[in-house]
């Protein structure tokens, strides 16, 4: 059992307090998963730079080594630490997989995300623990997805917390509730295509699977529809890109997922209680996705 939530402003020019909205949605979703919590948020994209989010254990000069690596790669526009968590704006125009490898070659470093607009923060514990560790509630942006995790397979730590960045594709991440039972087969297939994985968590394969299809020119809708057939097991998941959010539910409808929307916004969540944390007067009527249904919202 895990909790999913997402929020999007439909107007491509509009941004707002998506951090505050996700914080409000994640707190009631904490009952569906107490192990860890994470958010992928989308701010204003910068065409000439990337924003990096990473966890760097502060011991034996590691932060300095990471900063040196980033400077050599292209230069740091700005950066700051919240404890062990680094946020840096990078001047870089090379391969993101290569850059990620160089950063993670430094011991005790975990890259959460690199994107033009996407920033992933996550922590063991609930939404308030994330807020203490990597303040996100004040984040202004266009859309965001979040996750509360109840671990059933892989280890409970920040690396295995959702969202998962579809490395090395910029600005794509996934949150998932369920189990992907053909995970090993799918992962081997994607690895044979040259993709790499950061964890042993089955959810990460969804991110890379969708990102691979988008990179091949498929639309988000087509990729979502294909996933319902290609992914075995039980799942509800949200995938976020620079342009929007998509979601899908498995053919047996075993994991909950519902959405609501109006002309301005769309909200998706595992349970209505997350939506009501934002829409307290219940003006928006939610609807469950049916078995095998996919939906998407592009700004």
């Amino acid at each position, binding site marked *: 059992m895990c909790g999913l939530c997402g929020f999007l402003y439909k107007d491509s020019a509009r941004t707002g307090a998506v951090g505050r909205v996700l914080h409000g949605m994640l707190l009631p979703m904490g009952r569906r998963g107490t192990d860890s919590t994470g958010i992928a948020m989308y701010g204003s994209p910068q065409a000439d730079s990337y924003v990096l989010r990473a966890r760097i254990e502060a011991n034996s000069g590691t932060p300095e080594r990471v900063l040196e690596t980033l400077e050599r790669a292209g230069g740091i526009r700005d950066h700051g630490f919240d404890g062990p968590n680094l946020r840096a704006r990078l001047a870089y125009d090379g391969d993101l997989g290569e850059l990620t490898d160089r950063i993670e070659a430094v011991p005790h470093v975990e890259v959460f995300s690199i994107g033009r607009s996407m920033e992933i923060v996550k922590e063991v514990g609930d939404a308030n623990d994330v807020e203490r560790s990597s303040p996100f509630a004040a984040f202004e942006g266009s859309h965001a997805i979040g996750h509360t995790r109840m671990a059933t397979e892989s280890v409970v730590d920040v690396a295995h917390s959702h969202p998962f960045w579809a490395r090395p594709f910029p600005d794509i991440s996934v949150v998932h509730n369920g189990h992907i039972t053909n995970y090993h087969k799918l992962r081997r297939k994607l690895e044979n295509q040259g993709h790499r994985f950061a964890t042993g968590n089955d959810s990460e394969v969804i991110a890379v699977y969708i990102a691979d299809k988008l990179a091949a020119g498929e639309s988000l809708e087509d990729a979502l529809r294909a996933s319902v057939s290609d992914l075995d097991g039980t799942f509800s998941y949200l995938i976020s890109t620079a342009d929007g959010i998509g979601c899908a539910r498995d*053919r*047996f*409808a075993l994991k*909950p997922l*519902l959405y609501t929307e109006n002309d301005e916004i769309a909200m998706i969540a595992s*349970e*209505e*209680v997350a*939506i*009501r*944390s934002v829409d*307290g007067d*219940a003006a928006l*009527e*939610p*609807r*469950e996705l*049916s*078995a095998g249904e996919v939906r998407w919202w592009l700004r």
Partner: protein
Amino acid sequence: MATLTGEIDCSAHSTREINQAIKRAAADGVPEIRLTNPAARHCLGVAVMSPIHVIFEGPVGWYCGGMGDGVRITVNGSCGWSVGENLMSGSIEVHGNGGSSAGATLRGGRVFVAGTTGARSGISMKGGTLVVGGSVGYMSGFMMQRGTMIVCGDAADGIGDSMYEGTVYVGGSIHSLGADCVEAELTGDDRALLSAELDPHGITSTGIDWKKLVAGKKLWNFSKHEYDAWRGAL
């Protein structure tokens, strides 16, 4: 909780406090209790065993009204999964959409959802009546053992899969029948039942191409000559 009144603001109380207050009110003979700001919280109004009209002014979460016996619940909003699960008697009316497993293991009474409900609505019903004003999701009526399910809209794939007994009525289209679910002839008694169940909700039952679904009974006993039926069910 403070002295009982006929109205409770859910936002000021825990779920346990709310449910205890409803039960105390029912035991004290209070005819009606109104609850504001339910905010889609789970397990509201469960196991109320005495007659009382409970009105939720807003959406409720999962399992609302479950295990009740003689309670009348009105939800002026939507509801989550398993509304009225194992209801023994009484009624639940939801004036919005429902989630999956609406009326699961219903044993008696009536559950009405004005909008749509999700997958496995009416799963393992053992009695009572589930009425859905809109459409139902995948595998609704799965392993139904008794009772009546009325779907005014469409039925998704696998309706009535592996049902033992009971009756399902569908007013809209049927994507596919579940294993051993067959269509039966609609009689005058069926039309009278539909009218009696739907009229109180302001839903007309006439002029609709109702389909009546029952168990084919091929799965009651194993037969190697019915291999295809068993393979489909399993």
